[in-house]
């Protein structure tokens, strides 16, 4: 059994700017890389990869009862210099801020996301080398119970 998903893109009529709507009804704008109106397609792929694994990792870390106070994923893609300029490597850097975060939990969450759950990475993995690393930043002070 398979799920079908639809997205729609409409050209705004001049330049290379577009409005796009995903199956869930949310929209974004696109532009060519030098244009001011929106993100470029390959950067959107990078953000999709980052967003997909970020959602998995935060979910798993919270299930593991990790006290995460901040989290981001930095994504850098390396592209071939010849057309069609595909990604050859994608570096994912996970930055987890929190209190007494267990590095093993972070490692395991990333591994589960990249090997099991993240649909965008499953699309990229066959042709792109995905590198991952993480940093944990200890939150300096425990927050007082009431301000």
């Amino acid at each position, binding site marked *: 059994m398979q799920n079908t998903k639809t997205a729609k893109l409409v050209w705004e009529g001049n330049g290379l700017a577009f409005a796009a709507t995903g199956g869930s009804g949310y929209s974004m704008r696109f*532009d060519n890389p030098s244009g001011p109106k929106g993100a470029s397609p*390959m950067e959107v792929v990078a953000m999709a990869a980052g*967003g997909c694994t970020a959602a998995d990792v935060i979910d798993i870390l919270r299930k593991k009862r990790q006290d995460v106070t901040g989290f981001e994923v930095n*994504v*850098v893609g390396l592209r071939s210099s010849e057309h069609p300029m595909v990604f050859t490597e994608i570096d994912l850097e996970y930055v987890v801020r929190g209190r007494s975060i267990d590095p093993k939990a972070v490692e395991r969450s990333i591994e589960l996301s990249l090997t099991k759950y993240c649909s965008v990475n499953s699309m990229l993995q066959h042709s792109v080398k995905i590198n991952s690393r993480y940093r944990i930043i200890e939150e300096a002070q425990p927050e007082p119970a009431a301000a």
Partner: protein
Amino acid sequence: MGATTVKWIGSKQFVGIDSTNHSVVLSSVADGVGMKPSDMLLIALASCTAIDVIDILAKKRIPLSSLEIVTSGEQDADPPWTFRKIHVKYRLSGQGLTEKAVAQAIELSEQKYCSVTATVRGVAQVTTEFEILHSEN
């Protein structure tokens, strides 16, 4: 390509920021505040081939007056919900637009220029179709 960042803003909600500071809100469908990452992949593919097709037709001196692309993807029912088929439907109009010119532009994009298609093709079968809309004149 510069660095893009995805920042957690709570629950399963994120802000994606690209290297030139365009931002987009991402979330799970349940959270319902932004785009789903796998939707973004389909949209990235559509915008990538759209740019090629507009460019190629402009070089052939056939400027488009409208273009709309609908992409649909079939995903596995089980994790990681990999897309196995992606269908791209182009609906376009423009004075002097011929079937041949459009077919060529789409083929060039698909075979040569579209980096998103080239990146996912090994996993998903990408198919295309197009429809030329004739304006009432």
